[in-house]
């Protein structure tokens, strides 16, 4: 039976390739650190179940240490813009069709594999289909574009260098949520928040959740980081356990309420300050000023959506 383990084997192979190609990339002065970092990720994917809890913890500490002192970025494998333009003209919209294979396979597989419980671990149908989609897109791309098989890995390594340590941020935040849960964070914050929400007011709790997501995101500049906090504080204890809200809807739209906060904060420099500099605006906050008028009504809409959809 095909399980998530197979996907981990594939992901481990990808990370191992990024590590090895990084190791021999002389254009990157910190190639050793990059190789170690992605090598540890490959180890985690391949052998995480054998390392034990404490072993995995040490692996995370090593990742944090290497990421903390900083990874490098190699320039090897960059394709000249003239050549890319030439190829774009030759291949046209076929390029989008190849990219479309991934989400299409993931979507079809999610529904189709439900009918094949003997072959596929149904609980993980989407992630398995996603991996299958990647392999299909890769095979199609190599055939249609007549590219050498080594090209995708080298290009993947180049893009991985650009993402850097931020690649493991979502996984780290999900894990932090586990420590929050063990420590009883939800009860602690919930007690305080409940002081501010009228007892038994569902709309009050939903507003606290949506506004809290936006406010924490404004302060931290990152909705991903705000989510474990607000989920432990209001989402889980009040909306899901207390009022029996649909967890998928509460979380999905709650995250988007956080994104409204991202539109309004200079802390999200990549999205709000860097473009102002790129466009040579005199007002650093020029982009944020244009976004507030969309962010505030959209935040209100998100709060209403949670209230309507998650509590039938």
């Amino acid at each position, binding site marked *: 039976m095909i399980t998530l383990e197979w996907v981990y084997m594939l992901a481990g192979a990808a990370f191992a390739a990024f590590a090895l190609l990084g190791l021999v990339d002389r254009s990157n002065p910190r190639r050793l650190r990059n190789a170690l970092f992605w090598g540890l990720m490959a180890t985690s994917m391949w052998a995480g179940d054998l*390392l034990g809890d404490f072993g995995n913890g040490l692996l995370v500490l090593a990742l944090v240490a290497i990421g903390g002192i900083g990874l490098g970025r190699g320039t090897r494998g960059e394709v000249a813009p003239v050549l890319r333009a030439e190829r774009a003209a030759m291949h046209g919209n076929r390029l989008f069709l190849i990219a479309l294979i991934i989400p299409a396979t993931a979507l079809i597989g999610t529904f189709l594999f439900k009918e094949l419980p003997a072959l596929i671990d149904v609980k993980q149908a989407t992630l398995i289909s996603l991996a299958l989609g990647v392999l299909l897109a890769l095979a199609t791309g190599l055939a249609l574009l007549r590219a050498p098989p080594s090209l995708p890995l080298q290009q993947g390594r180049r893009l991985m260098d650009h993402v850097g340590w931020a*690649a493991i941020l979502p996984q780290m935040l999900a894990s932090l949520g586990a420590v929050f849960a063990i420590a009883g*964070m939800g009860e602690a914050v919930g007690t305080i928040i409940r002081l501010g929400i009228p007892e038994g007011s569902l709309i009050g709790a939903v507003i606290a959740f949506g506004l809290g997501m936006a406010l924490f995101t404004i302060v931290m500049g990152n909705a991903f980081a705000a989510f474990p906090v607000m989920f432990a504080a209001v989402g889980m204890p009040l909306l899901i356990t207390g009022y029996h809200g649909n967890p998928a809807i509460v979380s999905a*739209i709650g995250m988007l309420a956080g994104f409204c906060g991202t539109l309004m904060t200079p802390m999200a420099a990549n999205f709000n300050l860097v473009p102002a500099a790129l466009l040579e605006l005199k007002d650093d906050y020029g982009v944020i000023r244009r976004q507030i008028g969309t962010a505030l009504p959209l935040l209100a809409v*998100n709060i209403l959506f949670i209230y309507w959809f998650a509590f039938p």
Partner: protein
Amino acid sequence: MWVLLGIAVIVVGFMLRFNPLLVIMAAALATGLAAGLDLVAIISAFGRAFNDTRYVSIIWIVLPVIGLLEAHGLRERARALIDGLRGATVGRLLTGYMLLRQITAALGLTSVAGHPQTVRPLVAPMALAAAEAQAGDLPEAEREQIKAWSAATDNVGLFFGEDIFLAIGSILLIKGLLEQYGIIVQPLQLSVWAIPTAIAAFLIHGFRLWRLDRRLNARRTAEGAE
């Protein structure tokens, strides 16, 4: 109540722009110690959760495909599509760009467009040209505003398109976090609930762009009447 220290650490750490990986680790240690756990127990709990949520990081297996396509001109092709919007009013141009950005992001192609890739070289100059065709020469302050609208539209399109893709970081983060609380959801159950907000974002931002068009056109008419 001391476990709240963990939240304080993460908020202050992100605010002061320390490396987020270090901040997360410090927050985990502070929370665990405050709850009376010892160091080994905290590291083990974190390690166990990290291993259980490995699927959050499997999205990176898409990079070789994206890299292959980009080496063959995917971004240049995206630019050509945006270039096809030339000649419209600034409001329609930016609305069209927002739609393109939402759709490509929903397909997982978050990096085919963006501030360095498309906004600075393409969208902002096209928006300026369109605005000046509508309202005549613009004072510097308004030229700045039009450029800022271009960047803002890119952000809105990206943020409220990407979560429809069922294997984006935020969706997998939610799946991983819910699992720590014993709730199992499929990525698709989460990503379909990004669709209502995506439509609302398009309508709200699109309405504001339509009003921008009206303001610029009204000025042309007013000037013509003088």
